[in-house]
C-alpha cells in the first residue's frame, strides 16, 4: 500500500504538516544535555599549548613550569602520543592525485599553522590546564610560511612538505565539448575574477568531546558533539588500536554543526588517546579562540571565469579556473579536495549548454585546514555561474530573468546529464522561477527601483538560480575507500503501552531531525507523533548509519524510518488480525487504534494488543510471528546524488557614499521534493540564507602575510546578526524523487548555496548605472566604494 501524499485528509497525515518538535521544550527550558553538561567520576580536563607561529621546527620543549602548576596531572607531547596513536592521511582513491602528509594528534617535529596543537596539558580543572598550557615553553625555530594561494606553486615559494615534492594537493580538469572553439566564435564573451572569502561555521556550541576508557571492559566511550558517530567510532578504533566493536560514540544534544563537526580534529583524537593512556575520563571543550583557529575553515577560493553567449543570450560555453588554499593538511577522512571538486561539478548547474571546462587547483598553505562546511562548494559555484550569467545579460542588454529562462533545462527534459556529468532525475527550474517572479512581483519591484533611483537611491534586484546536491550515495566517499556510510537505518518497535520507539542512524544537531523522524514514523505506523520516542546518536544502540551531512537526514534517514514504520505496521496488523479474527488487509492503524480500513470503526487500542503480545502471548496462535520490532535500511541506487533546485532573489540598497549595503528583502523558491515538515524546511532555508548572507557581506577570516590569524573573536569576525537580516519569504515546488516512497530530497544547504550570488547580483544591479561591479566577497563597504572609485589611497 502506498501513501496517498496528495490527499491531506488521509488518516495519520503527519508527513507534510508542521508538527511540533519533540525536543524543543527540553532545549528551551535549558534541559538539554550537551557534552559539557556531562560530568563523570575522576574526570580530567585537557587544554592545549598551540603553535603561535604559522610554520616552525619544534625544538626543545620545557615543561618544568607547567608541571608545577597546582592541579596538573600529566602533560603529553607529540612524541608521547605518537606512541599510542597512529597518524592519518586524508586522501580518497577517487580523487586522483590527491596527496597529503601523515598528520598526528599533536604536532611532531614541525608545526604548520597558528593554532595547531603541540602539547596537551591534563589537569583537574580547565583553568589549571590552561594556566599550565600558558607556561609550556616550546623552542620554535621559524620556517618560511606559505600564505598566498595563487603563488603557492611558484618556483621560489618554499615547499611546506618537501617529501610531497610541491605544494599541490590536488588538481582536476574537466572538459566537455569544444570550449575554445565556442569562445572564438561567440557573439559575446564576458569574464570576471571572483573571490569568496575564507570563513568558518561558528557553531553556538563549540567542538566538545569527553572520552572515557574502561580498561576492565576494554571499551572506549566517547561523548562527542559530532555529526557522524559511526564514522568517529571507526576513526578512534583504527588509530588507537581498539576493536571497532569496543568503541562507543554517544552524541547527545548538539548546538549546531553546519559541517564543522563532521571532521577528525587532532585535539579531539588527542583527547581520546590521553583517556586511553590515563584510564580516566578526559574532557575537551574548545573555547571561542580555539574555534576560530582550529575549526575547519572553508570557501577560500579565487576564480577566473568566463562565459560565451550568442546573440539570443544562449550560453555557448563556460570556462572556470578555480584555486583554493586548504592549509597544511587535507582533513581526515573526507579530505579537503571535495570543495574544489564540487566547484567543478556544480558550475553552470541549472543550464542546458554544451561546452564546459573547469579546473580546480588545491594547494597547501600554512593556515588553518579547510574542509566541508554547509553547502560545500555550492556558494562558490553559484556565485561564479550566476555572476557570469548576469554580466552576460547586461553585456547584451537582456533582462536577467529572461536570459535564465532561455538557458535553464526545460522542466520536462529529465532525466538529463549536465556538461559537468551530473545526473539530474527531475528538477523544476522554470516552475520555480515562475513562482519567484510572481512572489516578488518583478515588474513592481523594477518600478520601485526606478522610482528610488529618481530620489538618488541605488537599489538593486539580484536573481540566483541554483542546484543543490543532496542524498549522497557511496559515490561521495565510500567509493574512495572511506568507511563513511551512505546507507542509513532505522529500527522501530512498539512497546506494551502502544507507544513507539524509533532508533535512527541519522543525528540531531538542533536542526529538527528527531521531529522529522517522529512524524514519518507516526504516519508510517499510525500513531500520534507525541507517541513516538526517537533515539539517535549512539553507536551501540542505533542501526549503523552515516549521520548528518550533505542534506541526507530526511531523504535517507527518513526513508529508512518510513520503511521500518510501515513494516512494524504490517507486523502489528498481522497480530491484530489473529486477535480479531479479521483479514490484516482490511484493518488499519489510526491514532493508535486498530480500525476497520473501510469504515474506520475502532476495533482495539494498541495498548490492548501490546498487553496481549507481551504478557498473555500464551493466548495467541503458536506459530504467529509476534516481533513488534522492525529494522530497515535505505540507500540510493539509481542516482549518485539527488539534486534539488531553486532560485533566490535579493532586493537591497547601496549607500554609494559609505558603501553600506542594506538588505531590504529576500526570497527563495526551492524544490526539495516532498516537504515533510513545512516549518522545519522553511527555517532550514532561512537559516541557510542567513549563513549565505554572512558570506556575502560579513564573514572573512583575516591572516597577515606571516600566517598570523588576525580576527579570532566574535568582535572581529562578523557573523550576520538579526538586526541586519531582511524579511525572508520562502516557497516550494515539490518534485519528489522516485528513488524512495517518501520522495524527500535534502533542504539543508539550498539557502546557503544561492544567497551570496543573489546579493552579489543585486549589488551589481544597483551599481551598474555608475559603471561599477564587485566580485570579491564579502562585499564590505570599503570594497564597494573602491569599485566606485571613491577612495583615494
Amino acid at each position, binding site marked *: 500500500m502506498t501513501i496517498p501524499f496528495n490527499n491531506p485528509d488521509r488518516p495519520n497525515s503527519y508527513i507534510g504538516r508542521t508538527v511540533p518538535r519533540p525536543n524543543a521544550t527540553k532545549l528551551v527550558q535549558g534541559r538539554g544535555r550537551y557534552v559539557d553538561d556531562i560530568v563523570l567520576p575522576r574526570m580530567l580536563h585537557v587544554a592545549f599549548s598551540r603553535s603561535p607561529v604559522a610554520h616552525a621546527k619544534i625544538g626543545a620543549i620545557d615543561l618544568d613550569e607547567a608541571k608545577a602548576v597546582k592541579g596538573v596531572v600529566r602533560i603529553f607531547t607529540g612524541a608521547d602520543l605518537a606512541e599510542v596513536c597512529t597518524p592519518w592521511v586524508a586522501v580518497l582513491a577517487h580523487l586522483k592525485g590527491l596527496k597529503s602528509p601523515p598528520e598526528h594528534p599533536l604536532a611532531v617535529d614541525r608545526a604548520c599553522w597558528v593554532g595547531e596543537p603541540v602539547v596537551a596539558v591534563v589537569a583537574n580543572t580547565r583553568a589549571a590546564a*590552561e594556566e599550565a598550557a600558558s607556561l609550556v615553553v616550546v623552542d620554535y625555530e621559524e620556517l618560511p610560511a606559505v600564505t598566498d594561494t595563487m603563488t603557492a606553486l611558484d618556483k621560489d615559494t618554499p615547499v611546506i612538505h618537501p617529501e610531497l615534492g610541491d605544494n599541490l594537493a590536488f588538481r582536476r580538469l574537466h572538459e566537455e565539448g569544444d570550449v575554445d572553439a565556442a569562445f572564438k566564435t561567440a557573439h559575446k564573451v564576458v569574464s570576471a575574477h571572483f573571490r569568496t572569502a575564507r570563513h568558518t561555521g561558528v557553531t553556538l556550541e563549540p567542538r566538545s568531546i569527553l572520552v572515557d576508557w574502561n580498561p576492565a571492559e576494554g571499551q572506549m566511550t566517547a561523548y562527542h558533539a559530532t555529526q557522524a558517530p559511526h564514522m568517529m567510532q571507526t576513526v578512534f578504533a583504527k588509530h588507537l588500536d581498539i576493536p571497532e566493536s569496543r568503541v562507543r560514540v554517544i552524541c547527545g544534544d548538539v548546538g549546531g554543526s553546519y559541517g564543522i563537526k563532521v571532521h577528525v580534529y587532532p585535539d579531539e583524537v588527542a583527547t581520546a588517546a590521553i583517556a586511553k593512556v590515563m584510564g580516566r575520563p578526559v574532557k575537551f571543550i574548545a573555547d571561542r579562540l580555539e574555534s576560530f583557529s582550529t575549526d575547519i575553515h572553508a570557501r577560500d577560493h579565487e576564480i577566473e571565469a568566463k562565459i560565451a553567449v550568442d546573440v539570443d543570450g544562449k550560453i555557448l560555453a563556460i570556462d572556470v579556473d578555480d584555486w583554493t588554499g586548504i592549509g597544511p593538511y587535507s582533513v581526515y577522512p573526507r579530505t579537503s579536495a571535495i570543495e574544489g571538486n564540487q566547484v567543478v561539478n556544480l558550475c553552470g548547474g541549472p543550464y542546458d549548454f554544451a561546452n564546459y571546462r573547469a579546473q580546480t587547483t588545491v594547494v597547501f598553505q600554512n593556515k588553518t585546514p579547510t574542509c566541508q562546511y554547509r553547502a560545500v562548494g555550492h556558494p562558490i559555484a553559484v556565485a561564479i555561474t550566476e555572476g557570469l550569467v548576469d554580466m552576460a545579460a547586461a553585456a547584451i542588454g537582456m533582462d536577467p530573468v529572461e536570459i535564465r529562462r532561455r538557458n535553464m533545462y526545460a522542466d520536462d527534459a529529465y532525466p538529463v546529464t549536465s556538461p559537468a556529468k551530473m545526473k539530474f532525475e527531475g528538477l523544476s527550474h522554470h516552475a520555480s522561477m515562475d513562482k519567484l517572479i510572481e512572489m516578488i512581483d518583478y515588474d513592481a519591484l523594477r518600478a520601485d527601483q526606478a522610482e528610488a533611483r529618481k530620489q538618488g537611491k541605488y537599489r538593486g534586484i539580484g536573481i540566483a538560480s541554483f542546484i543543490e546536491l543532496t542524498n549522497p550515495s557511496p559515490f561521495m566517499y565510500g567509493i574512495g575507500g572511506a568507511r563513511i556510510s551512505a546507507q542509513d537505518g532505522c529500527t522501530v518497535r512498539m512497546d506494551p503501552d502502544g507507544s513507539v520507539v524509533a532508533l535512527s542512524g541519522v543525528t540531531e544537531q538542533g536542526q529538527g531531525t528527531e521531529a522529522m523522524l517522529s512524524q514519518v514514523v507516526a504516519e508510517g505506523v499510525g500513531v500520534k507523533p507525541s507517541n513516538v520516542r526517537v533515539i539517535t546518536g549512539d553507536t551501540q544502540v542505533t542501526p549503523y548509519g552515516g549521520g548528518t551531512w550533505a542534506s541526507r537526514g530526511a531523504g535517507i534517514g527518513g526513508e529508512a524510518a518510513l520503511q521500518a514504520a510501515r513494516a512494524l505496521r504490517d507486523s502489528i496488523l498481522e497480530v491484530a488480525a489473529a486477535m480479531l479474527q479479521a483479514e490484516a488487509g482490511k484493518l488499519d492503524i489510526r491514532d493508535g487504534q486498530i480500525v476497520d480500513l473501510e469504515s474506520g470503526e475502532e476495533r482495539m487500542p494498541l495498548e490492548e494488543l501490546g498487553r496481549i503480545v507481551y504478557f498473555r502471548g500464551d493466548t495467541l496462535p503458536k506459530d504467529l510471528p509476534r516481533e513488534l520490532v522492525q529494522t530497515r535500511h535505505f540507500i540510493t541506487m539509481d542516482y549518485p546524488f539527488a539534486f534539488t533546485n531553486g532560485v533566490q532573489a535579493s532586493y537591497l540598497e547601496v549607500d554609494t557614499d559609505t558603501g553600506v549595503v542594506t538588505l531590504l528583502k529576500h526570497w527563495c523558491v526551492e524544490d526539495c521534493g516532498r516537504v515533510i515538515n513545512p516549518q522545519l524546511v522553511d527555517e532550514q532555508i532561512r537559516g541557510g540564507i542567513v549563513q549565505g548572507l554572512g558570506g556575502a557581506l560579513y564573514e572573512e577570516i583575516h591572516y597577515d602575510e606571516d600566517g598570523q590569524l588576525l580576527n579570532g573573536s566574535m568582535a572581529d569576525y562578523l557573523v550576520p546578526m538579526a538586526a541586519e537580516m531582511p524579511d525572508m519569504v520562502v516557497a516550494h515546488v515539490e518534485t519528489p524523487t522516485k528513488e524512495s516512497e517518501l520522495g524527500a530530497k535534502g533542504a539543508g544547504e539550498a539557502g546557503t548555496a544561492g544567497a551570496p550570488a543573489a546579493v552579489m547580483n543585486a549589488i551589481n544591479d544597483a551599481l551598474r548605472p555608475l559603471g561599477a561591479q564587485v566580485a570579491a566577497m564579502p562585499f564590505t563597504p570599503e570594497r564597494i566604494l573602491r569599485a566606485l572609485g571613491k577612495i583615494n589611497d
Partner: protein
Amino acid sequence: MKASAGGYARAESVRHALDLLAGSEGQGRVLAGGQSLVAAMNMRLSVGDLLVDISKISELSGVAVEGDILRIGALTRHAQVGADAQIKTHAPLLTAAVSHIAHAAIRNRGTIGGALAHADPAAEFPACALALGATMHAEGPSGTRGIAADEFFEDVFTTSLSEDEILTSITMPIAEQGEVQILEEVARRSGDYALVGLCLIKRAVGHRIAVFSVGPRPILATNAMAALDQGDVDAAVEALSNEIDPPSDTQASSAYRRHLAGVLLRRAVCRMKGETA
C-alpha cells in the same frame, strides 16, 4: 578561556576603594560594569588583576543638574543614560550615543565612567565628552581633581587618571538655547564599534566636532570647526581629512576611514541645517 584574576574585593565606599587600590601594589583594577574588563580577562589579555569592585557604591550613580552644569555619576549605566530625561534635555548627544552602543545586555551593565576610563578610541562616550567639553572628576589619595576632556584621553586605552585614582563623575555645560548636538556613525552591524563616528555640536560661540575610531584617541577637529564657523563645508571636510590619521585594520583601511569622516561631517551638517543628506 578561563579568567585568571589575582583577587577580588568589593568596595563599600570611594574611600574604601581608594584604600584597596593603594594596597594593591599596582595590580589593582577598578571593576564597574565589567563589559570590557571581564571580556579582556576571559581572553587572558589581562591576568592577575586585583579587582576592586565599585559597582555597589551608590553615591557614584545618578544624574543631577547643578545650575548650568549637568553631572552624571560614573556608575550610571548606559541604559540609564539613554533613558534619562534630564540628559535628553541638557546633553542629547549622550542620548543619541547610547543607541549606537553595543546591545541591550551590555547597555544594562556597562557604565559611562567605565567607558570613559577604558578610553576605547572607537567608543562613543569619550568622543561625546570631548565634543561636549566635559570635565572628568577623579578622586585619589590626595583629594579630588577635575580633568578636562581634551587632557583626559591620551592614547589607546590610556587616560590621565593615575593608578590610585577613581573616576567618580562627569560634568558638562547644559545645552544652551538653540544648541544642536548630532552624532553620526557607520558600523558594520548594529551595535558594533564604529568604523568612524562623528559628533557635531553647534553653539553660539561656534561649532565643535569630535571624531572617533580615526586614531589612538577621540580627536577634536579644530581646523574643521574653524572652517565650519566660516560656513565653508567643503573646507571643513578638507580640513578634517588633514587633521586625522586613521588606522587600518581588518574592517577598514585608513583611506576608507578618512573618506567616511568627510561623508559623516557632510551628513551631520545637513542634519544640523534640517536638510536631508
